[in-house]
Structure formats: C-alpha cells, structure tokens
C-alpha cells in the first residue's frame, strides 16, 4: 500500500486542476462540467466548487453522467445504474468530463457515446485526478491530470474520500 496523494497534496492538486481549467476557459457561458458516476462525482464537485469560487458572479454549469447502459460489458457483468442529471443542453458546448482514475479508457469511451444522446458538443476534454499510464486499452488520453503514475494491472488505485487520500494497493 502506497499513498500517492496525501490530504494536502490532494487539495492542492484539485486546486491546480481548477485553475488550469479556468485558465483555458475564461468564458464560462460555453463550458459545461460533467462528473462521471459514481466515483468521478466527488472529485468533479470539488473541482467545480473551486472554479465557482474563481468566478463568483457567474454560474458554473455542472451535471453528472452515468454510463452503465453504454458499457461494452453489459452482458457479462451487471453494474448498478446511478443517477444521470444533466439539466442543460450540451449542443455546441465545450464539455469537460471529470473522473477520478483513468485506467483502461473504457469508461470514457462509454461516456463519449452517452454524451451524444444529450446533443452534439463542440469539443470534449477529459480531466482526471490520477492517470494510470501504460494500462490503456483504447486510444484515450487526458487533457488535464492531477498525477500520472505507472502501475501494474494487478494493482488498484483508490481515492479514499473519508481520509482524503489517494492510495495504491
């Protein structure tokens, strides 16, 4: 067990991601943030809260997306479906997908499919807290990442929100 990010590092990393996103998207009218259910929700909430603090006079658009029905392994393993709540159109918008750990890339593949059902975004970017390089099964890379790490397929990366740590098992 190794701690990848401790409490303070985690807070700083999230703050940095928020600043990077804000730096690249000064006009908040065209940008929407979407957290991926279930584990991308806590991190996306924190990132969006930090961005909101940088722009106190504007409302940051934020939704959550569940990709269960778009998975490529629907028939081999049952995953419990979670709530999707996207209370705005993504037509013509810049969408930033936010998740906790990028691993095989299959979740993001499914999320890109799911997103199409809410309109045609102008651009989609990916922001993750932890990028597990060298484990990708699809050609998907993050535009923003908190920390890139090299792991074995047999290892697990978990964000422990109660302890506010990212741990490699």
């Amino acid at each position, binding site marked *: 067990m190794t701690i990848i990010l401790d409490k303070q590092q985690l807070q700083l990393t999230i703050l940095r991601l928020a600043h990077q996103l804000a730096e690249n998207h000064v006009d908040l009218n065209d940008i929407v943030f979407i957290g991926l259910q279930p584990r991308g929700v806590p991190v996306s909430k924190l990132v969006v809260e930090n961005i909101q603090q940088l722009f106190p006079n504007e409302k940051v658009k934020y939704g959550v997306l569940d990709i269960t*029905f778009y998975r490529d392994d629907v028939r081999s393993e*049952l995953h*419990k*479906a979670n709530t999707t709540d996207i209370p705005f159109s993504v037509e013509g918008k810049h969408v930033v997908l936010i998740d906790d750990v990028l691993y095989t890339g299959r979740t993001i593949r499914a999320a890109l499919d799911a997103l199409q*059902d809410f309109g045609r975004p102008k651009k989609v970017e990916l922001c993750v807290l932890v990028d597990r390089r060298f484990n990708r099964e699809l050609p998907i890379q993050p535009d923003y990442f908190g920390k890139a790490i090299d792991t074995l397929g047999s290892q697990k990366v978990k964000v422990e929100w109660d302890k506010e740590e990212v741990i490699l098992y």
Partner: protein
Amino acid sequence: MQLSTKHLLGIKDLVPEDISLILSTASQFKEVLQRPVKKVPSLRDVTIVNLFYENSTRTRISFELAEKRLSADTINFTASGSSVSKGETLLDTVNNILSMKVDMVVMRHSASGAPHFLAKHIPAAIVNAGDGINEHPTQALLDAFSIKEKLGTLEGKKIVLIGDIMHSRVALSNIYLLKKMGAEVMVAGPPTLIPKYISEALNVKVEYNLKKALEWCDVANVLRIQLERQNQVLFSSLREYNLAYGVSKKLLDGLDKEIVIMHPGPINRGVEIDSDVADSNQSIILQQVENGVAVRMAVLYLLAARGN
C-alpha cells in the same frame, strides 16, 4: 449483484432485493426517456420475440417500445393469423422461433402457467406479460413504481385492490409484490368476485363495502371487470355493479383525505370507475402507462445482463 431468477414468470418467485433492484434501475431508465435521444445501446446484441396469444394494447406497445429503446431487435407474433390456427403447439411454435436465434421471449397467454411450462422446455429467458388468471408481473412492478413515485415508499402504505379479484392476474401480482415490500393490502368487491379463502391464503384484508375500503386506504387500484373470463353470472348487471362498486366522484369527495386512484387499463368507464374520477388530478392512470416502459426496460435489461 443481479436478479435471483433467470426468468420473470411471476412476482411470487422474486425476493424483495430483486424488486428493489428492478425499481431502482427503472428510475434510471425513466431519466433516459426524458433525454433528447431516448435510446441506449445496452441490448444491441439481443433479439426478443413478443409472443401474444391474447389481445393487448398497452402491454404490447409498452414492451415493444422498451425493447427498441434498449436497441434490441424485436419480432412480433400474434396467434391470430399464424400457424396456431393450423394446429401447431405452443412448444413447437416457440422452438421454431428460437431456432432463428432469439434470446428472449415476452409472452402473454390465456392459459395460467403457460410461461412456466415454456421455461421448463426452452433455453431462452422468458418474461410473463400476463398468463390467464395467474400473474402479470410487469404490471405489478409498474404499479409499485408509480406508487413509490407518488408517495415515496411502499412500506406501511395501505393499498386496496377493488373489483374482480377472482379473475385478475393484476390483483394477484400486486398482492405478492406489495406484501413483499411491506405494504398493507386489502381486496374489496362483491363476494362473488373475491376468492373465498383469500384472506387466509394471501394474508390480505377483505372488505365488501366500497366506502369503508376507500376510507381505509392511501391508494385505490381499481380493476377491470373481466367479462371475457366469467363463464357464469357473478353479478346481475353492469349498472348494478356500478351503483355498488363503481368508484365515483361523490364517494371520493366524502372522504377526509385525498387518495391516489390507479387502474391497470383498459378502463370500462361508468362501470368500475366513473369518467370524472379516471380523468381527475387524483388519478395516476396515465403515469402508470408512462412508467410501464421504464419498468419493462429495467426487467429486460436485468434479465439480459444475467443471460451470460
């Protein structure tokens, strides 16, 4: 985590966890149905046959829509106009269809137990869409979903089923489901339409006075008088039935609370329920139909996910 059963033959075979899983999955599908594109690719590789040996409007359209919105391929079969009239047996018909690589069978039949018979003889997953006077599980699930949506929970709620309990598969499935989920259940109607030992057999309250039943309940699920299944005279006339057991505006206005009115359809207006009640704000009859698609998507999705 998955359903405990390979088929959905009846609510009788389900455990409470199955019911909760179906209802929670259905609420996610309900959100899918509000999207600009009301379709998900989950069952792209699944072919489903809708086998209807008995008439149906709602259930059939609802299943077909549910299948299409899950991206499944569908085939529709109706007994009339098929080789059934040439003497082909149920099992032969189904085996012929299955030999064309069909994965699931949605089936309605006038004989109670027909889907249970099929389940013993064929490898495909079977969804009972109503068998004789036995069960109509997806109707009970969508009824439960609609009650939960309206009242927040099923636990502790008082639900009365009114009318032709004897011939109603909706009643039996509802009783099983509501009891499993901790609701209190009463059946009300004329003694000739209520099975004699139902209170001992299924642990439900029995009431022959409609007004008392309505005073007791939070939700009244009004059932259709199934004239096509009655082969003897069980009440003297539809008009008399309406006078004694028809749910009227006047009766509802006389209660000290606003109860929820449900009906599985098709409605016989002016018989078991008056038009102004069926169309009132208290009635969630059309919401039931709307929820039917999401609930059936959940059932098909969960059974297909269990398939491999």
